[in-house]
């Protein structure tokens, strides 16, 4: 799901180049991030055959192209994924309801308001009102500082200068590149 306000114009090249054999969708309004309370990309969720979540939001790298930046190796996640494909709900990586519930907590009041401010900013941007959109993107970032999506999407639509910062400055403020993504919460591999 491409979380791209610019739609095909911004995401299309990546989809074409990937020659994907799986379904790739374009999510201009960041609807999936809203519905699943996601704050960064890539974020993965495992959903079983009955439409039930069995692993909630977590960083989901399928290769090591960003390993130097994140310090994260994709192999443990890919191993876990393979295990789930083979064993289904019996996989050790499928979470119980008790494990899932705290990770699926609803957004707080500020995060809800942030989602509305961000949606308003997107609407204004897409109708040619960038100058009016920027204060709403800033308000979304203030109300939900955990959302990298709100920061990075807004920077892409105009410039980091409009926000008086840079992506790397924000990463450093948050503790640096090695904590930018929390590693997936995977149990030790069982043979």
């Amino acid at each position, binding site marked *: *799901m*491409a*979380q*791209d306000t610019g739609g*095909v114009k*911004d*995401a*299309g090249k*990546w*989809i*074409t180049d990937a020659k994907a054999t799986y*379904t*790739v*969708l*374009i*999510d201009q*309004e960041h*609807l*999936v*991030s*809203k*519905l*699943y309370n*996601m704050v960064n990309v*890539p*974020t*993965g*969720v*495992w*959903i*079983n*055959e*009955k*439409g*039930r*979540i069995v692993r909630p939001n977590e960083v989901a790298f*399928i290769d090591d192209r960003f390993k130097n930046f994140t310090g994260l190796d994709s192999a443990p996640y890919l191993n876990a*994924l393979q295990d789930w*494909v083979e064993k*289904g709900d019996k996989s050790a990586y499928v979470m119980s*309801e008790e494990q899932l*519930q705290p990770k*699926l907590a*609803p957004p707080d009041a500020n995060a*809800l308001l942030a*989602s*509305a*401010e961000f*949606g*308003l900013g997107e*609407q*204004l941007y897409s*109708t040619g*009102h960038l100058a*009016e959109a920027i204060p*709403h993107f800033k*308000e979304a970032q203030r109300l939900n500082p955990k959302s990298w999506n709100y920061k*990075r*999407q807004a*920077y892409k639509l105009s410039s980091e200068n409009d926000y008086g910062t840079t992506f790397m400055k924000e990463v450093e403020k948050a503790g640096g590149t090695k904590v930018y993504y929390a590693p997936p919460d995977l149990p030790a591999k069982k043979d």
Partner: protein
Amino acid sequence: MKASFLFGILLLVMVATLPAVAKDVRATIVYDDKATDINPAQTPDGTDQLWVTTADLTRATRFEVKPQGVCREELCFPLPKTHLTDFLHKQAGKEWFNLTAFAELVHQPMARDTATSTWYFGLRADQRETLASLRAPDFTLPDMAGKLHSLSDFRGKKVLLVTWASW
């Protein structure tokens, strides 16, 4: 003396219940991420309220005012009977509906841009509550060719849902 005292109380009550003076405005309502231009809408002076005709309510949100509440297909939100005038009033032969009060009733976040008179309504509580049930919230989105796909189309298969972005 007693009569004038009672009249004073009555007048105070009347002033308290009279709606603030509303002015006609042009507004863009974004509901379910779809924009609809409304002209006229009304915003009572000194408030953040947005009133629209019940016809425009349906045009912008697909909700209709019915005897049992504000409804869209099977979904219905009863209006509190003791506060009906907070939601509905008649003026110049039209029925007006307070969309901002309704947003509050259904726990729907809202944001407003005054310069462009744009009102954005986010996900209602009923649209957000499926996560706690562990059911994966359904959605329908287009692929690059514009063909729509729903998560529910994949029922019976395992789904790895991954978000990414060009930025």
